[in-house]
């Protein structure tokens, strides 16, 4: 069941299902490597809980919760905790 990226907790992993943003934001997100099928992990949140820091494709990206709302993800099971 896809949910918004915003709902992920720190350290949770997920796969991007779709990005439903306006064309400019969507292009920016894709340029930065956020395309459907990409695996990501939430690695932290700023002191005021927003923006959120993500790890994907071996680099770290931050975006705001508002932008995270555009990204639908599918939670991945923890491999080994």
């Amino acid at each position, binding site marked *: 069941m896809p949910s918004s990226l915003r709902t992920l907790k720190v350290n949770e992993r997920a796969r991007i299902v*779709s*990005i439903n943003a306006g*064309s*400019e*934001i*969507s*292009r*920016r*997100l*894709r*340029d*930065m*490597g956020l*395309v*459907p*099928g990409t695996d990501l992990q939430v*690695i*932290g*949140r*700023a*002191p*005021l*809980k*927003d*923006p959120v*820091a993500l*790890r994907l*494709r*071996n*680099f*770290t*990206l*931050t*975006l*705001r919760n*508002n*932008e995270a709302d555009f990204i639908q993800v599918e939670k991945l099971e923890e491999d080994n905790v």
Partner: protein
Amino acid sequence: MSNSATIALAGNPNSGKTTLFNAITGARQHVGNYPGITVDRKEGSIQFDDARVNIVDLPGCYSLSAYSQEELVARQVVVEERPDIVVDIVDATKLERHLYLAVQFFELGVPMVLALNMMDEANKQGLQIDRKRLSTLLGCPVVETIARSGQGKQELIREAVGHAKKRGGVWEPLSISYGPDLDPVITQMVDVIEEQRFMTNRYPARWVALKYLEMDDEVMEQGRKLGETADRLEQMVQEVREHCQKTLNTVPSAIIADYRYGLINSILRQGVITHEPTQSERIDFSAKLDTVLTNRFLGPLIMVGILYGMFQTTFTLGEIPMGWLESLFGWLGETAMAIIPPGMFQSLVVSGVIDGVGGVMGFVPLIAIMFLMISALEDSGYMARVAYMLDRALRLFGLHGCSAMPFIISGGIMGGCAVPGVMATRTLRSPKEKLATLLTAPFMPCGAKLPVFLLLIAAFFSENEAQIMFLITLFAWAIALLVSRLLRSTVIKGDPTPFVMELPPYRMPTLRGVLIHTWERVWHYIKKAGTVILAVSILLWAAMTFPGLPDQQLQLFETERQAVATGTVSAEQQATLLEEIDNREGQVRLRHSVAGRIGTMLEPVSKLAGFDWRTNIALVGGFAAKEVIVSTFGTAYSLGEVDPEETESLSSRIATDPAWNQFTALALIVFVLLYAPCFVTVVTMAKESSWRWAIFSTLFNTALGFGFAVLIFQVGTRFFA
């Protein structure tokens, strides 16, 4: 015979591009990882074998779309200047994402060499990259480099020059399949474009078609000027957009990006990258640091601690060389006084040039140390964390995490300059947030305001220098934020823009990068001191010297002197009396001059804030450049007390002047902090926004500063004196 080649260095931000550029050219160049810093054109040239190689450092960008200024500039340089070769620098540890830009260069068709940078880090992470295979699959030379040590740079240039020669300037655009939904329409569009020769003198036909599908503002704008072919293309795009929306619930640009990443993945999966699993367990150093440095509670505390530590270090370390420079200029003044016979010329050299410029140059060590630390913070990757941590808070005031950078460059942690600060706002995408940042950045305590603060603090609050400086900075931030909130809820209303930013891994800054950057900024300051400030110093000296007193009045002082000389007092008393006459004459002289008249004219108003006519002269000069304020004080006071043996520093003179007290000093500090930006900043603001806003800020800031100054002086002298 020698020949020449032009290499354009391209790459994502944080790919080590600038470091490599420094390593190759040794040129003065900044290594920064936040937006705005390399938008300026950076070039260098080297001799390689028998060829002259020119190197253009393109701004770092993630893509060749028209999202940011950097991307546009990178694209324009490649398309318009047609460099012989593009060297695309990719971070070997982030190959997948960094190749996204490379693929777009391949589609453009420009001859290219790929530099696999940070190979040392890749190896540490257990990544093995089959360079030969990658080279075959991409169809371009691939060179391994380690920019920090300069390893591989010779081979890179050899390959670049060699490949450029081999390709002979021929562009060979790569055709990528974009799937059954887009390929047919791309083919149709290419036919139309080729038939009409639509922009084909600039771009390959397929590239134009793709840019239309991506709804690229710049290309479509250019196209519309060429007439009806543009309409046809736009019509075709419209149809395929509707089709994609209906059948796939997506837009063509998304499909294009997906296919590009798909291509990259398919290349990398063909045995290009192998990963040693044992190493991958290693916990990433940056991630580990981030759990502390951006921690909810510790992060902000550490941030304030780091900034405060910077003040302490700067002031403790800076004091020593500042003393040396002060005595050097003191000695210069005395020497000039001894060599040049008294008169107008001596006055010009000593009061105008040496005192004026000396007052400014004395602060060079301080500024150097401050920049050294800021550069180190930038290059280490910490500055991006500052933006990340502050974004939520800045958004409250209608700003953006990226506003932190212009603020910091303008002097948000002291000692910046509003000119590059205002220029750095161009990376803010929303015109509204940009405008709010641009209008409030000049409130920051820039390097030119520092001397004024230091002077006044030394005179009145010398016990807690660092603390007061820290408070000034906090006050500047408070005002900038509140004014921004005010502007964003009145004259520049609007929604916030997205915050999508890379957090680069922490890196030890390279000494070379930090030194080059620091030297650049210090040199900029010294140049300003040598040119604008020198000119303004001389101008102000003239304004303070002419017109001279009428003969009649001079005669009066002369008579007084004679009376003392022929009087019956002791030699000691005589000297004191003569000095007192000299001082009075100096004061009268200054008051009679053009500057004195302007200052006196403004005095009835400025008195409300406790500023006398001499302060007014300095503040008017400060419109030209804030550095001038201190030098004018220097000139005003040395002209007012003409004792050549006077060795007291300017601050102690002000401290002992009866017209001054703590509240005057505080009011002046606040006024200087807030009032109209200097002329150069105003011009830059006009360039980045419009003259209307630049003038608005001049008037608004002055009114605001004066309001605060009056408040402080009135409340202070009435209730606390």
